C-alpha cells in the first residue's frame, strides 16, 4: 500500500485560549474506500510524536506508517472494509500548522508567538477536516496515549457524530506524574542555550535539550521488565567499564540513539506545545466529575489498557470505564497483559488487534443493520 500525505487549508480556527489562528493547514492521509452509505469511516488519532502517516509505505521516502501493523488490508483496521483517516495534530511539526509554521503576519516562523493550544482545539480542527471530507458520522475514533485523549474529546464534543470510541492506554485527565514528566522534558529543551526563547529556526536547533527530553520520554514508555529484557546490564561494545563518561551500557546507547534520531524529525517548540496541551487535558473541566462529562455521550466504547503501563496506569482507564458504566453506556474494557509498558499499544498488538477487529465488526453490523 503506497500512500501519500495530502494537505488542506482552512481559513481560521478559534482556540480555547481566545486567539484565532488563520490560516490553518492540515496534513492527512486516507486508506481504503468510503462506502456508498458513508458509514465506514474511522478516524485514527496519533500520539505525541506521531503524524498523519499512520499506515502503508510513504510515496516520498518508502517508510511504513507508525501504526502500519494495525491498519491495512486484513489488519485490525481493515482497509478492505473501512475508510481510515489520520491527520497530523494542531501544533505538530509534520505538515499541520504548528510553531514551526510561517506566521503570515510576520513572514517568519511562529516560534513562541504560536498560541497555546488544547486537546479540544486539536479535535475542533479535525472536525473541520471531517466536514471537508463530507462525513457526517464516524464509525470509530481511535487513538493511544494523547490520541486516546482526542478520542475521548471527540465522543464528548460531537456525540451525534461518533458511533464508537476506542481510547487506548490513556486518561481522561493528566495526573501530577504525567505533568511532571512533561515539565522535565520542557525544562531540558528550554535549558539548551540553542533554544533561544523558541527563536532558532534557520539557526542551530536545541538538539541537546530535545534529545534529553526524548530520552526521558523513552524511559517512561518502557517498563522495568522490558528494559531488563532488552538491555539488562550489558555493556556496549566493550568488555569492561570505561571508567569515564562515554557510553558504557547498552541502555545508554539506546537512549542516546533514540534522542538524536528524534531531533531529526521533531521540532522542539512542538514538544513544548503538545506536552502543554496534554497537561491541560481534563475532560471534567476541573469539576472532577467524569459522569457529568460523559452525560451526553452516545458512542459505544472499547477501553484498553496494559498491565505494565506505568505512565498511563490502568486505574486511569478504569475511571473512564466506571463513569460510563455509571451512566449505563455500552462499554467494554480489557487490561491486556503485556511487558512492554506504555509502548505496548504500538508494538504488542496481537491481542489488541483481535479485540479491535471484533469490536469494529460488531459496531459496523449495528450501524449497517446487516
Amino acid at each position: 500500500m503506497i500512500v501519500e500525505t495530502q494537505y488542506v487549508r482552512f481559513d481560521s480556527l478559534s482556540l480555547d485560549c481566545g486567539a484565532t489562528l488563520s490560516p490553518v493547514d492540515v496534513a492527512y492521509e486516507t486508506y481504503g474506500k468510503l462506502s456508498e452509505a458513508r458509514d465506514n469511516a474511522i478516524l485514527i488519532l496519533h500520539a505525541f510524536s506521531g503524524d498523519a502517516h499512520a499506515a502503508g509505505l510513504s510515496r516520498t521516502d518508502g517508510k511504513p506508517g507508525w501504526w502500519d501493523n494495525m491498519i491495512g488490508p486484513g489488519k485490525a483496521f481493515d482497509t478492505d472494509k473501512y475508510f481510515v483517516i489520520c491527520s497530523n495534530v494542531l501544533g505538530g511539526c509534520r505538515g499541520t500548522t504548528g510553531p514551526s509554521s510561517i506566521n503570515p503576519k510576520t513572514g517568519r516562523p511562529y516560534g513562541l508567538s504560536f498560541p497555546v493550544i488544547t486537546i479540544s482545539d486539536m479535535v475542533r480542527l479535525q472536525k473541520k477536516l471531517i466536514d471537508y471530507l463530507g462525513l457526517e458520522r464516524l464509525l470509530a475514533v481511535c487513538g493511544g496515549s494523547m490520541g486516546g485523549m482526542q478520542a475521548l474529546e471527540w465522543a464528548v464534543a460531537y456525540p451525534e457524530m461518533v458511533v464508537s470510541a476506542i481510547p487506548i492506554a490513556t486518561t481522561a485527565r493528566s495526573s501530577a506524574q504525567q505533568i511532571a514528566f512533561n515539565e522535565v522534558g520542557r525544562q531540558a529543551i528550554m535549558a539548551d542555550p540553542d533554544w533561544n526563547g523558541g527563536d532558532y529556526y534557520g539557526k542551530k536547533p536545541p538538539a541537546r535539550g530535545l534529545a534529553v527530553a526524548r530520552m526521558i520520554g523513552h524511559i517512561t514508555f518502557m517498563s522495568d521488565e522490558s528494559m531488563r529484557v532488552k538491555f539488562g546490564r550489558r555493556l556496549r561494545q566493550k568488555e569492561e567499564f570505561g571508567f569515564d563518561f562515554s557510553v558504557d551500557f547498552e541502555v545508554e546507547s539506546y537512549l542516546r540513539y533514540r534522542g538524536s534520531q528524534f531531533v531529526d524529525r521533531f521540532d522542539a517548540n512542538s514538544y513544548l506545545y503538545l506536552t502543554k496541551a496534554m497537561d491541560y487535558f481534563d475532560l471534567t473541566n476541573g469539576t472532577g466529575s467524569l459522569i457529568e462529562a460523559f452525560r451526553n455521550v452516545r458512542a459505544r466504547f472499547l477501553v484498553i489498557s496494559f498491565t505494565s503501563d506505568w505512565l498511563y496506569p490502568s486505574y486511569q482507564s478504569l475511571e473512564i470505564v466506571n463513569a460510563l458504566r455509571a451512566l449505563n453506556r455500552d462499554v467494554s474494557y480489557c487490561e491486556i497483559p503485556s511487558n512492554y509498558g506504555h509502548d505496548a499499544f504500538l508494538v504488542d498488538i496481537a491481542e489488541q488487534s483481535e479485540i479491535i477487529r471484533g469490536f469494529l465488526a460488531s459496531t459496523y453490523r449495528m450501524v449497517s443493520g446487516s
Partner: protein
Amino acid sequence: MSESSDSRRRGFVREILGRSDYAIISEWVEPRTRVLDLGCGEGDLLEWLVQNKQVEARGIEIDARKVQRAIARGLSVYHGDIDQGLTDYPDRSFDYVILSQTLQETRRPLHVLREMLRVGRRAIVAFPNYGHWSVRLSLLFRGRAPVTRCFPYRWYDSPNIHFLTIKDFQALAREEGWTVEGEIFLTGRYSGRLLANLLAEVAVFLLSK
C-alpha cells in the same frame, strides 16, 4: 487456576446442565431485556441470549484471555472482579443479573448477591449443591474433603471458598427477604424437587427483591 482443571470443571458443568441452563434461562429471561452475566467467560451464554432473545447483553469476566475472546465476538464485557465489579452500576440497571457456577468462588458471596439484586430487577443464580449425597458420603465414610463430580478439586487446588447447600441458600433468601420466583434442581438428566438437597447436584434460582 490451571487451564486443565478449569476446563474439567466447565466440562462438567456443561455436562450436568446439558443445554438445560440455556433452556432454563430461556424460560425465565424475557426477550429484549437488559442482561448482565457475571463471570461470563468467553460469552457463550450472552451470545446465545443476544441471538435468541435479542437482549442487550453485558458481561463481567476476570480472565483477560476470555475477556478478549468475548469482546472479539462483539459482546460488551468489562474486565474485572465480580466481588467489586458491580459497584459502579446504578440501581436497577438490568432486568436480569446472572451468576452461573461462581457464587462459591466469590470472596463475599452475600455482598455479591445483594449487589445483584440492587443493580438488577431479578437475579438468576446457579450453584453446585454441597448437600448432595456424594459429598455427605465422602466426608462421612472416607473422612476426606469431598472430591465429587460437582466439586472435582482437591482441597489445595480448589477455587471454591464458600460451600453452600440448597437449604442454606433457601434460608438466606428468607433471611434477606428475597422472593424466590423460580427454583430448578438438576442431577444428571433428572430434574425434580423430591429430596432436592440430597439428590440435586446443581440448583438454579430466580430471585427478586
